[in-house]
């Protein structure tokens, strides 16, 4: 059983890394023939970095668009970040100081994460416009994330799994040595869901995470009059005259 898990985990991690790398390479290699920043846009490279930082950390555009969605999504993403960092303790020995420090918050972040996801799903279910644009996969994605959060919280607050053994398994896994994993249904559910998420990441809307960095309306400097911007395929047209 532990062996099966370990192998599956290697496979999905590989799929995640390679798949994501492929997508990112695809974005990076696709030309941008024209200057299309949504203006007013920063006129310097530093300005662009700041704009992108505000976008990625604070969801600036979403804030302008809709406070309810912004709040729910900030709650979900912020909590998720804390929860992920907290999970570093399963992969490090000794546990890094700052990871230990956020430990108590990380546990509660699981709850706020669930709340954020619930809020986002409520919007999807009850707001007519959002329901109209939602596909089955949009709903299932939320179910999957909520399943991950709920199973994690169950282990933390209700059933308690043998976390020492879990840590032993992951430390071993990192070094290709397979240690026993506790036979716990909730833990299995938790890990299977995470693997599912990893596997679909490079093929789904989860690509919004790397995608935002490649969005020309957000990452271009507003300097078309000062610098000539020319892509390779567009330059070819010039040699034809």
């Amino acid at each position, binding site marked *: 059983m532990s062996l099966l898990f370990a192998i599956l985990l290697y496979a999905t991690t590989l799929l995640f890394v390679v798949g994501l790398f492929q997508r990112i390479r695809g*974005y990076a290699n696709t030309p941008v*023939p024209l200057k299309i920043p949504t203006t007013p846009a920063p006129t310097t490279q530093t300005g662009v970095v700041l704009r992108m930082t505000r976008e990625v950390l604070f969801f600036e555009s*979403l804030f302008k*668009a809709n406070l309810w969605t912004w709040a729910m999504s900030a709650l979900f993403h912020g909590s998720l970040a804390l929860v992920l960092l907290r999970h570093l303790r399963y992969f490090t020995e000794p546990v890094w100081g700052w990871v230990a420090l956020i430990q108590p918050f990380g546990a509660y972040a699981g709850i706020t994460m669930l709340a954020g996801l619930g809020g986002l799903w409520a919007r999807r279910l009850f707001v007519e416009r959002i329901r109209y644009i939602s596909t089955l*996969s949009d709903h299932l994605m939320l179910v999957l994330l909520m399943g991950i959060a709920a199973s994690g919280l169950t282990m933390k607050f209700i059933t308690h799994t043998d976390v020492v053994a879990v840590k032993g398994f992951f430390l071993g896994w990192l070094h290709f040595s397979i240690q026993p994993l506790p036979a716990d249904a909730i833990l299995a559910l938790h890990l299977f869901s995470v693997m599912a998420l990893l596997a679909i990441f490079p093929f789904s809307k989860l690509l919004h995470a790397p995608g*935002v960095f490649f969005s020309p309306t957000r990452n271009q400097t507003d300097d078309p009059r000062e610098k*000539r911007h020319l892509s390779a395929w567009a330059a070819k047209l010039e040699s034809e005259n």
Partner: protein
Amino acid sequence: MADVAAPAYRIIPIIPALKPGAMEGKGPFVANEKINEAIGFPGKMAENWQETHDAVIAKMGELLSKYRSLKVYMDACVHCGACSDKCHYFIGTQDPKNMPVARQDLMRSVYRRYFTLPGKLFPKLVGARDLTREVLDEWYNYFNQCSECRRCSVFCPYGIDTAEVTMAAREILDSVGYGQKYSNEIIGKVHRIGNNLGLPGPALQDTLEGLEEDVKDATGIDIRFPMDVKGAEVLLITPSADFFAEPHIDSLIGYAKVFHATGTSWTLSSMASEAGNFGMFIGNYEQLRKIALRIREAALELGVKRIVVGECGHAWRVAYSFWNTLTGVGDGADANDRFAQMLQKQLDHRYKQPTHICEFTWDMIQDERLSFDKSKNDKHIITFHDSCNVARGSRMGDFAGGQFEIPRNIIKAVANNYVEMRDGTTREQTFCCGGGGGLLTDDLIDLRVKGALPRMEVLQETVDVHGVNFMATICAICKAQFTKVMPIYGFDRRMVGGVHQLVSNAIILGDK
């Protein structure tokens, strides 16, 4: 025409309920064979559907490999709905497929089916669908109900720009002989005659001479409207509507007065008598480039030092953001970039190339080379409508947001009464007039009236509260659209006009 009615204002501007199918089959006229072939597109769709199907998918693949925007935007949307209530066409028509995200999904569903693994394996699950004739008709209908105004892209957390998707869709449709009549006909004219309105050189010359006489009668001063003058300092590129449409022409007179008062030698060009570039609207790079190259040729031939662009929204986006790329009008080309250097060496880089006429006038006002009698505009209580392409696709001056400040500064320098419209509907959040993006055609009048709703509501509010009686704007399409739809909303059509119309009213001519 007679049965076109304005939708009722919303009492409180809440997001409207959905009316599925409200705008189905209300797209514009399809271009005929002659129009398409004249600009190098297939005349009509293939008899055999499979052939068209394969060509569409192949073209889509090509565009995905040429435009990063399209590639990233097809993947990145999370269906968060932040953009869903931001489109004026959705607000005015309530058709859910006019929500930006739903408009993108018309293409995204096909992208997923043919270009992604989950869409190939489980189409139902991810909302992927086969490309059918019905799907293509739906593309034609709804991608021709988007003015490419980019309001949605301001609010999207990933900056997804529906205009990029619309442009790609129109490019694909054109490539299989399913183009839109209005835009393609105009592109034909610009190549054949030199401007969108099909005004040939000699007729233009007559018009300009007539204009000189009219202005002389009105002011007693000889203001020139020169054409094809070699060695002039400034080449003015302006939308051809400025030559005879109302109220456009009043702004043209304004530019001429500014040039006159500042002693600037300037010229128009008969070869490049059009600032507009509908190549952008149909998303076709080659057309965009070819149309823009006329300006390069004219500049080289006339040997001008500066290129100034008149009041036109999308033309300014093309000029500001794309001209340097397309034609070399700009600065900062590589030393060994011979194509661009040829022109850039000729231009005077103490000034931004190209320069917007508002930048030109504002610079002159700051240098105290112009003076005004502001009371001449006292009959007006003025507000300013930001045009979408200027607001969200370009800039003026040398700081971010100059495109908002400079026109307002000019208005305040030439008039006493100025008020803003409600926050959230100006600057980068401005609403499109409802006629941009190649939709300014009578066969879309229903859409245009409905699309103007959000702007009309806010204007009405400003009229009620501040007694506004003049809405200034710097776009030829805005001017044409508003003069047409405002009467349907109960406004006087003369309420809309250009910024340089106000300049023209107040400018003091003579020997200063």
